[in-house]
């Protein structure tokens, strides 16, 4: 009967769909098509073509314009597919689905190992990346290496410094802290004088905490192929956790989340007096806390021992070429343009903080006066910080996941009597079981 046939037809079509899915869902690997070469890159530029770039960095718009002007046969489709985690989710989804993968993706340094280890990115060494030793500052250059390969070109960097509101500091008689002990003393003084004001804000931020550990010399995450060691109780980590715990226990940090509108308000009206954060902060201050123009200054990051100068990187992204890209040579050409050649200056002009040593050390860059910071030559401090970044740090091959559960575990230290170290221990045990679940062999000693 018609009706029965209709039902049967509907049932079959569902089964057929399911079958198509199942058949394809086992694979998902793309043909990597042999390593490229520098000449292939040149050819791609002359031949032309179209590439899709996923990035949220606003200064890339001008880079794209200039790139297309220089190579008229090339067309670049720049898409903002989300910020940070949102983009990584989209990237993972499209890689898994095997379609819609971009040719270039902006990947922050902490997320790069994850994509590299799951073979989702192209090794750029053969395209010419291995010749770029010395072009970039240490932190970012290390961060784009994974195993023996190079999986991205650094785009910007975030060497840390102390950004502080001079007007507030002067009002309450605070000295610019050179050590963490001085920082703690300032925190107490400020909060006592004005219970509404805080030296800085923190409600638990994975990037910030890992950078603190980095500065203290901790190396809690060590990877060797698929063997992972996680030790969040090593010397450096303990040093950082103990120091920062003092601020939390005595309630000296503002309970405001970064990037919220309350945070911007606090920065503008002086109730958040300073930030220990990456070199990309000036642009955000300028646009988000415009009312405080002229009040802020930049100083070197506080140290554990007076006289030392160790810093860390906080944030910053690279550009990478997914393995599923069909136009790797052209994609690499864009990477080189944006991160090594003319593109760098274009982005610096737009307010980005570069990762290339050439720009960082140029006098034009360092001598620039920033009206927002009362005319201070901010880049001198920041470039120095880039030089002082502690060597030897690595992220986990599943750092994106790790950061996503940071607040579940370490976050408890901010809302209960749990200490940072206990929270870190919980974080560690969750990470160990996740890693093992996912096929890595993870140990914690």
């Amino acid at each position, binding site marked *: 009967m018609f009706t029965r046939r209709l039902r049967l037809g509907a049932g079959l079509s569902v089964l057929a769909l399911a079958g198509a899915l199942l058949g394809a869902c086992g694979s998902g690997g793309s043909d990597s098509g042999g390593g490229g070469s520098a000449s292939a890159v040149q050819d791609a530029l002359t031949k032309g073509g179209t590439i899709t770039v996923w990035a*949220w960095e606003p200064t890339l718009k001008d880079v794209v314009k200039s790139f297309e002007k220089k190579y008229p046969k090339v067309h670049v489709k720049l898409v903002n597919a989300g910020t940070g985690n949102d983009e990584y989710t989209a990237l993972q989804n499209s890689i898994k689905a095997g379609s819609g993968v971009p040719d270039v993706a902006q990947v922050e340094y902490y997320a790069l190992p994850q994509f590299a280890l799951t073979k989702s990115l192209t090794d750029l060494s053969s395209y010419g990346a291995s010749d770029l030793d010395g072009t970039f500052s240490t932190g970012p250059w290390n961060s784009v290496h994974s195993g023996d390969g190079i999986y991205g070109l650094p785009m910007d960097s975030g060497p840390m410094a102390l950004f502080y509101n001079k007007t507030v500091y002067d009002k309450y008689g605070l000295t610019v802290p050179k050590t963490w002990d001085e920082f703690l003393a300032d925190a107490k003084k400020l909060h006592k004088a004005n219970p509404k004001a805080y030296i800085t804000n923190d409600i638990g931020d994975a990037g910030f905490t890992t950078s603190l550990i980095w500065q203290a010399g901790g190396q809690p995450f060590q990877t060797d192929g698929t063997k992972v060691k996680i030790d969040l109780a090593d010397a450096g980590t303990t040093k950082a956790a103990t120091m920062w715990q003092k601020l939390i226990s005595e309630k000296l940090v503002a309970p405001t989340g970064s990037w919220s509108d309350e945070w911007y308000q606090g920065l503008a009206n002086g109730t958040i007096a300073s930030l220990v954060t990456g070199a990309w902060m000036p642009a955000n201050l300028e646009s988000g806390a415009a009312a405080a123009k002229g009040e802020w200054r930049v100083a070197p990051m506080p140290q554990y021992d007076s006289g030392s100068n160790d810093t860390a990187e906080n944030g910053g992204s690279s550009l990478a070429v997914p393995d599923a890209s069909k136009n790797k040579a052209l994609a690499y050409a864009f990477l080189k343009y944006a991160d090594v050649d003319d593109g760098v200056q274009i982005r610096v002009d737009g307010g980005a903080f570069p990762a290339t040593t050439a720009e960082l050390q140029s006098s034009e860059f360092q001598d620039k006066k920033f009206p927002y910071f009362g005319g201070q030559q901010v880049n001198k401090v920041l470039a120095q910080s880039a030089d002082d970044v502690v060597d030897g740090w690595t992220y986990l091959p599943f750092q994106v996941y790790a950061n996503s559960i940071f607040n579940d575990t370490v976050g408890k230290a901010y809302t209960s009597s749990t200490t940072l170290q206990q929270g870190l221990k919980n974080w560690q045990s969750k990470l160990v079981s996740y890693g093992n679940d996912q096929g890595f062999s993870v140990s914690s000693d």
Partner: protein
Amino acid sequence: MSATIPFLRSKPRSGTPLEPRRSVTLTLLCGLVLLYSLVPLLWLVLNATKTQPDLFSSFGLWFGDHFSLWDNVKTTFTYDNGIFLRWLGNTVLYVVVGAGGATLLATLAGYALAKFEFAGRRTVIAVVIGAVAVPGTALAMPTFLLFSKLGLTNTPWAIIIPSLVSPFGLYLMWTFARQAIPDEIQEAARMDGASEIRIFFQICLPLLAPGVVTVLLFTMVATWNNYFLPLIMLKDPHWYPLTLGLNAWNQQASTAGGEAIFNLVITGSLVTILPLIVAFLFLQRFWQSGLAAGGVKA
């Protein structure tokens, strides 16, 4: 029961169920609920008039130092090459095709399930209603992969096709059709030799009108406010509906070098909810009279 003879009844001390007296107390009490519903919207309107610095320095429920509603609206529509207008257009497209299609599909199916006797109709209802219980957000990944294989992701179809299925709409139309269409009408029309399609469109649809309008209203709200599935399905901001666009603008401040545009997010939000509210007010008259009429007839 004999009918009441109104003029013989003495005037009651308190209102009767049929001739109630208006109560100030009740109005005031309900006014509290009204306030509860409206204060956040008032916040939205007030804050859409503020510049970004003002947003952060003025009291939440009063105006800022500068009144810049017009500036905000203008900037909202011109920011980033007028992408907001594009988002608005996308949303209208999704709503017209998606909600319109959903209403059509639900009406056809609800009518058939209610007025035709064929084997399996109870199963259909049970399965459809049952499907509502499965968490949509957790099915997102399988749906995404499925649509990926079909090459539909990052296209308008990825939004429209899922919007075409409204289990609640089906349920509403099924209930409504059972009540609003007498069996005799169908029989009579069939006797006269009319085709089923004709019977549906010419005779039954007018009877179903109030239900149709209700389903249309609800599916319009659902598609206009659709957020989660589009979030996964769409990568290209050119196809974003307004909800995704606003979210993207909101996130913009959370990135190194990003530009905070909270004032545009707020103004954009205000613009986003206005069309729906207007649609409510407009459709409400039809739906209201329809239901009342349906009530009298029943």
